C-alpha cells in the first residue's frame, strides 16, 4: 500500500485513493456483492432455532450489547437521568446485566456523565452534525472535541454521503481521519447511513474506506436510525463480511454496530446468529458488537423474564415502557 499525506489531517493515508478516485474502481478492488445472494444467506439465519439455555445466553448477551439511545430534540437532563438509570439496571432481577452504553446528543453528555461515570456503562455521543453531517468540517470537529471533553467515551460520527456518492473517496476518508484525531482516546464509530448508500456494493466499499483508517476496537455502524430504512440483516451481513476480510488482510479487529429498526428480542437473536456464523466467538462481546436501540431493551428483558417464570409478560410491567395498553 502506497501512502501519501492527507490534505486535511496531515496524516499518512493510502495514496491509491488519490490516484484512483472512482467509486467503480474501488468497488472492483474490494469486490462486488450479489444482492440476492446476501438476502438468501441472511434468510438462513432467521431459521435457526434458539431455545432454552442458548436463548437465555443470547438474550443476556444482547442486553450487554445495547447502546441505550435517546436522540430527540426534546431530550432534557431529566430524560437522560432516567435513560441512565435504565441502562445501569434494566430490571429488578439482578441476573439481568447492565447495557454497554447510553447514546445521546453532545449537549446531553455532561448530564449522562453524572450518572454513569465510573460504572461499566459507557457514554456514546453522536457528533459531526448528526444525522445529516451537512455542516462545515470545522464545526463538526469542534462538536467531537466538546463531547469528548464533557466525558464521551465513544463518538458516533456520520460519513459524508454526498462526497461518497460523488466519488470523492479521498475526502470521505480524510474526514474520518480528522474525526479520529479529535476523538483522542475515545472509541470511534463510523456511521455509513446504509439507506442512502443503497446498494450492497457501496456499503461494502464504504466499510473498507472507513476501516482502512480505523484502530482496533473502533466500529463501523449501519445507520443513524433517522431514515425510513435502518439496520437489516442484509446490510449487517455485508458489513460483517467486510470486517472479516479486513481482519484477514490486516489483522485489525474492527467492531460492528447495527442501529435502528431492531425492536424485538427475536430480531436481535437473528443478528447474533449472523455474528456467530460469520465472525465467530471473538465478536460475541460488547467490545466487538453493539445494538443501537431503545425499545429493544425492554423486549429483551421481557423475554428473559418469560424464560425465568414460564409465563408470557405484558409490556407495561417494565420500567420506561412506552406501551400502556
Amino acid at each position, binding site marked *: 500500500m502506497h501512502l501519501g499525506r492527507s490534505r486535511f489531517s496531515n496524516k499518512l493515508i493510502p495514496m491509491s485513493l488519490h490516484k484512483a478516485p472512482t467509486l467503480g474502481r474501488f468497488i472492483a478492488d474490494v*469486490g*462486488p456483492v450479489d444482492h440476492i445472494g446476501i438476502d438468501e444467506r441472511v434468510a438462513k439465519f432467521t431459521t435457526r432455532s434458539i431455545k432454552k439455555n442458548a436463548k437465555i445466553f443470547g438474550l443476556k448477551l444482547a442486553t450487554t450489547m445495547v447502546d441505550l439511545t435517546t436522540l430527540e430534540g426534546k431530550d432534557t437532563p431529566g430524560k437522560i437521568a432516567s435513560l441512565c438509570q435504565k441502562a445501569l439496571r434494566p430490571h429488578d432481577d439482578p441476573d439481568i446485566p447492565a447495557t454497554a452504553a447510553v447514546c445521546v446528543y453532545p449537549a446531553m453528555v455532561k448530564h449522562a456523565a453524572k450518572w454513569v461515570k465510573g460504572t461499566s456503562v459507557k457514554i456514546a455521543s453522536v457528533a459531526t452534525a448528526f444525522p445529516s453531517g451537512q455542516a462545515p468540517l470545522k464545526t463538526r470537529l469542534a462538536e467531537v472535541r466538546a463531547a469528548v471533553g464533557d466525558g464521551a467515551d465513544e463518538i458516533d460520527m456520520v460519513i459524508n454521503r454526498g462526497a461518497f456518492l460523488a466519488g470523492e473517496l479521498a475526502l470521505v476518508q480524510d474526514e474520518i481521519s480528522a474525526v479520529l484525531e479529535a476523538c483522542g482516546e475515545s472509541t470511534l464509530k463510523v456511521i455509513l447511513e446504509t439507506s442512502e448508500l443503497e446498494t450492497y456494493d457501496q456499503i461494502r466499499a464504504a466499510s473498507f474506506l472507513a476501516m482502512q483508517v480505523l484502530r482496533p476496537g473502533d466500529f463501523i455502524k449501519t445507520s443513524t436510525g433517522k431514515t425510513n430504512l435502518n439496520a437489516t440483516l442484509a446490510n449487517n451481513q455485508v458489513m460483517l463480511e467486510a470486517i472479516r476480510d479486513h481482519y484477514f488482510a490486516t489483522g485489525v479487529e474492527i467492531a460492528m454496530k447495527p442501529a435502528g429498526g431492531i425492536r424485538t428480542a427475536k430480531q436481535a437473536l437473528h443478528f447474533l446468529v449472523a455474528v*456467530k456464523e460469520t465472525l*465467530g466467538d*471473538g465478536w*460475541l462481546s460488547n467490545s466487538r458488537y453493539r445494538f443501537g436501540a431503545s425499545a429493544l431493551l425492554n423486549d429483551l428483558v421481557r423475554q428473559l423474564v418469560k424464560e425465568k417464570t414460564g409465563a408470557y409478560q405484558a409490556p407495561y410491567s417494565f420500567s420506561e415502557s412506552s406501551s400502556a395498553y
Partner: protein
Amino acid sequence: MPAKRTPARELLFGNLWEYDPAPETAKAHIDERYGLFIDGKFVAPKSKKYFDSISPRDEQKLSEIALAGPSDVDAAYQAAAGAFKTWSKTPGLERAKYLFRIARLLQDRAREFAVAETLDGGKPIKESRDFDVPMAAAHFFYHAGWADKLEYVTPGRTLAPLGVVGQVIPWNFPLLMLAWKIAPALATGNTVVIKPAETTSITALKFASILQEAGLPPGVVNIVTGAGETGSAIVNHPLAAKISFTGSTAVGKAIQRALAGTGKRLTLELGGKAANIVFEDAPLDQAVEGIINGIFFNQGHVCCAGSRLLVQESIAAPILSKLKLRLKSLRTGDPLDKNTDVGAINSKAQLTRIQDLVAAGVSEGAEIHQPVCDLPPKGFYFPPTLFSNVSQSHRIAREEIFGPVLSILTFRTPEEAIEKANNTHYGLSAGVWTDKGSRILKMSTELKAGVVWANTFNKFDPTSPFGGFKESGFGREGGKQGLLDYAQLI
C-alpha cells in the same frame, strides 16, 4: 527492513454460544404398515410380502411397505386404463379443480409431510419444511392452472393425452419427485401408475390419503411400492403408453434398452457431474455460499449438484480458505433437529459408495479436507468433504458421487473453463459466477447443460423447465415445455 512475521489470523468458531437441541415436535402420522394404493383404496399385495422401511437418522424401523409383484402392477395398470376412459374426457377445468384441491390439502398438512419426509429419507427438517413440501404443493398448483389452457400450448396442433403413464422416482426428493411426475401427467389428461423408491415410500403412501380427501376419481393415480423387480414390471407393462424415469444413468440406459421396439414414449432424468465455474470478478462470498449450497444441499444427493468446482486460478487460494471457513458453521447431524444443515445419508448402500469414492480420491492423490464433526453414533452420516488439487482424470472428477463431496479443479481462461465443464458424458446443469453480464450469456451459450445457473445455484420453479443434455437424460419437467412430454400432438 526484514519482513514482520504476521501471526496466523484465525476466527474462532467455538462453543461460546452453543445452540441447544431443537427437535421438531410435529407428528408424522406414519402407519405401521401400508398396502398398495390401487383404484382409489389400499389393498394387500398378492404375495402378502412386506419389507421394512428404516430411518437413516437412527436405523430405527418406521413402517412396513408392501412388495408389489407383477400381478399387483397389472391390477394397477388395469385400474389406470379404466379410469383413463373418463379422465381423458373430463373437461380441463374439472381436472384443474382436482389438482388445485390436492395442492391446498398438501399445504394444509405441510408440517406432517415434512416430518415424514425427514424421517424416511434423512434430509434436514429445515429443507423438507422450507423446500421439498412447499415446492411439491407449488407444482400441483402450477400444473392445475394448465389443465384448462392446453389449447394455448401448441398452436396449430391439439395437445392430447397419451394414456396410462408408468413413473419410477428416486429417493433424494421423494415427495417432490412425485409432484414433478404426477402433476403434469394429470393436467394433460393421463392416468398414472407410480413407484416411489424402496427406501423412501412413506410420503408417497401418505399422499394417497390426500388423493382420497380431494375426491380424485379412483384409478387416476395408483401407487405401487417395491424395488427393482417392481420397477421392471412397471416399465415393461404393455398398457403403459409412456414411461417417465428419474434415477441413475445405469438404470436409465437399461430402461431405454427394455423399451426398444415397444413404441412406448420415454423421458429420462438421470445423473450429473455439474461444473460450478467461479471467475475472479465474482462476488466471492456469495459464490462461496452458492458452492456450498450446490454440493451440500440435501447432502449432495442431487442429480444437478455442483460437484465439480472450477475456480479461476487467481482466486483458487482465497476461495478454498473461504470454503474451509464456511464449513466451520455448517452443522451436520440429526436431520430432525431444526438447526441441522447437513442431514443423514439416505442408506447404508449409498454411504458405502461415498466412502469408496472418497478413498479413491485420496489414493489418487487429491488433497482432502473435512471439518471436525460430532456425528450421531447410530444412523448413516458423512461429513462435508472438500478435495482440492483435483484433475479431470481423477475418478472423483468424473464419477457421480451423490454425496457431500466437492472436487475442486482450476482453470485460467473462459475457453478452458468451457472445455473442462463440457468434458463429461453428463450434461444436466452448470453454474457460472462472474460480475460480467456478457460473460454469463456467453458461458450459458457454450455450456452443454440443460440448466445453467448464473450467480446462483440449485434454484427450481414449476415454471422453469428442468432436464439434461447427453447422458443426463432427455425430456423436460416444468414450464410449458414439460407438458409436451406428457402429450401427443394431433
